[in-house]
């Protein structure tokens, strides 16, 4: 049976520490754009932890929400791409083929979650920082759109390994970089087609909801509400 990769984000566990953000940079060769570009709103964080203030001092609260590509089943970013650079794989992934991308940036406009990023310049890694680059992930050149891939390189590696070993993938065998580094275990990645996987179980939770659900994008990331104590 084909896999359907999805994620569950337990906002009751998430502390907003930002480990996932750093882990994503480390895994996916995301360039640091530097202060000038960051000041122009060009910082690249495939995964960001949104924070929203609620109330005023002294009765003030903060809400954290990690937002990465929601890998929508009805992704608005896909059909608008004239070159099929953005399309749907049969494992439900929202593939972005960098070398097909001509940089219309239409997908980024169509994405309601603003999780797509654009290479405004050729990325720089002053030596020897380049030694850290992950050889499994392509380095994107100028003029290309990019976004969270659910660490597709890890998924394919594991699938190839399982295929070679003539075995089924175990739940939890594949972890995205963000999920792996999350100490509080707020991020859970897995196969939604496997009803017993952690991610399926969590996605069925009554606390679960999708981000901007009413837009009908059918995201594969489920957010489990933060609970409140009386």
């Amino acid at each position, binding site marked *: 049976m084909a896999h359907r990769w999805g994620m569950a984000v337990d906002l009751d566990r998430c502390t907003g520490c930002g480990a996932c953000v750093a882990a994503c940079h480390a895994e996916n060769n995301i360039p640091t754009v530097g202060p000038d570009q960051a000041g122009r*709103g060009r910082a*690249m964080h495939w995964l960001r932890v*949104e924070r*929203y203030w609620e109330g005023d001092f002294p009765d003030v609260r903060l809400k954290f929400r990690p937002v990465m590509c929601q890998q929508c089943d009805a992704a608005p970013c896909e059909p608008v791409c*004239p070159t099929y650079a953005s399309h749907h794989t049969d494992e439900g992934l929202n593939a972005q083929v960098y070398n097909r991308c001509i940089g219309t940036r239409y997908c980024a406009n*169509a994405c309601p979650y603003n999780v797509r990023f654009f*290479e405004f310049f050729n990325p720089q890694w002053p030596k020897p920082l380049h030694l850290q680059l992950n050889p499994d992930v392509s380095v994107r050149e100028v003029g290309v759109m990019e976004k969270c891939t659910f660490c597709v390189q890890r998924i394919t590696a594991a699938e190839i390994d399982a295929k070679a070993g003539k075995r089924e993938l175990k739940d939890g065998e594949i972890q995205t970089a963000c999920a792996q580094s999350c100490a509080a275990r707020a991020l859970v990645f897995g196969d939604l087609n496997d009803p017993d996987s952690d991610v399926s179980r969590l996605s069925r939770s009554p606390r679960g909801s999708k981000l901007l659900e009413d837009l009908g994008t059918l995201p594969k990331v489920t957010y489990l509400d933060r609970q409140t104590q009386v």
Partner: protein
Amino acid sequence: MSDAPANRLSDDLLRPLLQTSWRFYALVAFLGSIVLMGLGTWAYQMYNGFGVTGINNPIFWAVYVTNFVFWIGISHAGMVITAILRLVNAGWRRPVTRCAEAITVFALMIGALFPLIHLGRPWLFFWLIPYPSSRQIWPNFRSPLVWDFFAISTYLTGSVLFLGLPMIPDFALVRDRTTGWRRRIYGGLALGWTGTPKQWHRLESAMSIMAIAILPVAISVHTVVSFDFSMAPVPMWHSTIFGPYFVAGAIFSGIAGLLIVTAALRKFLHLEEYVHPVHIQNLGKLLLLMSLLWAYFLFVERLTVWYGNESAEIAVLRVTQKGSFAPLYWTMVVCNFVMPFSILSLKKLRTITGCVIASCGVLIGMWLERFLIVVPSLGHKYLPYTWGTYRPRPVEILITISTFAALVLLYTLFVKFVPIISIWELRAAEHPSPALLPAAAREQALGETQA
């Protein structure tokens, strides 16, 4: 006798082709240098990367797309207006049709450039074209950008022919009036036109077929342009009204552009005798009509959003009308409605100058309108954490300026080599048999009295 006027007419209209003043060369040199600067800037942008522009995350489209929509809008001057006027056979169209259609062709060429300029990797633009590539990947016909490609190429082909066919008899005229290399070139362009009744019939029926075919295409083009926005789930983009809204806006700005060009030609080519104030005033009336129509669309769009109170849309509404974009927004309202309306609705003010002033306002206003459609929405999508704003940077401004220069340049050259007023059509209107074209005749008369 029709001899004298006929000759005078053709003499006047051929003068620009046959005599060249130093002013012409100066103008061409000036505009040419601006255009070259624009090209240089584009090269600079391609070499250094798109970061030299002001776009950022989340505002991935800005001035370039604004210009794209703006120029495509201007291009509606020619086709829609002349096609309609041809079909209703309004005589007063005759002096203005050709310069209108020329605007269409040139504005369209420039507009079609912008999708390329705004590509992240322009050197791969041909992946938009439906050709069997080595890996048999065709473009994605579900993408509005591909619709753009088809719509614009059809429209461009159509309008080039629509402009070109009626030029054949005039080329024949030039052929007969000139000698030497001019005779040879125009002889070639005339395609061996003589002027038998058969040819005239074929030409005229072809033109009416074209007029009927080009109208829906023109409308579809700007509808498709509006689809670029309304297909995306972006607050205040995702709107059913955008099709007609954009078409109306396009015709609106198109007429303004046409009006300015006509007035300019009239002044600089001394065509007072052929372009009468009434022609320009008629355009002015059309402009007034479109201004009202535009205001109506704006009202409908805004009211629906305001009343609907969908939080994301309200955020955009707020930032445009009360927030950082408010100055631009209210300038747009003044330029597109308040000013044209107050000038054009008063007969006293509806002079050529008045009309030109109003039109300039409309051009500014319509550019702003497109800018305000593109930018604030992108900056205020659903998740406020990702909100952002935008300032254009020199690169974008230079390229924008140079495209305006490019239009004027193309136009200057066009006027230099082609009779800007369709001579044979004027002649056809000159000695009508009483039974024919009452409308046209009356318009002419009206023009005379006012001139």
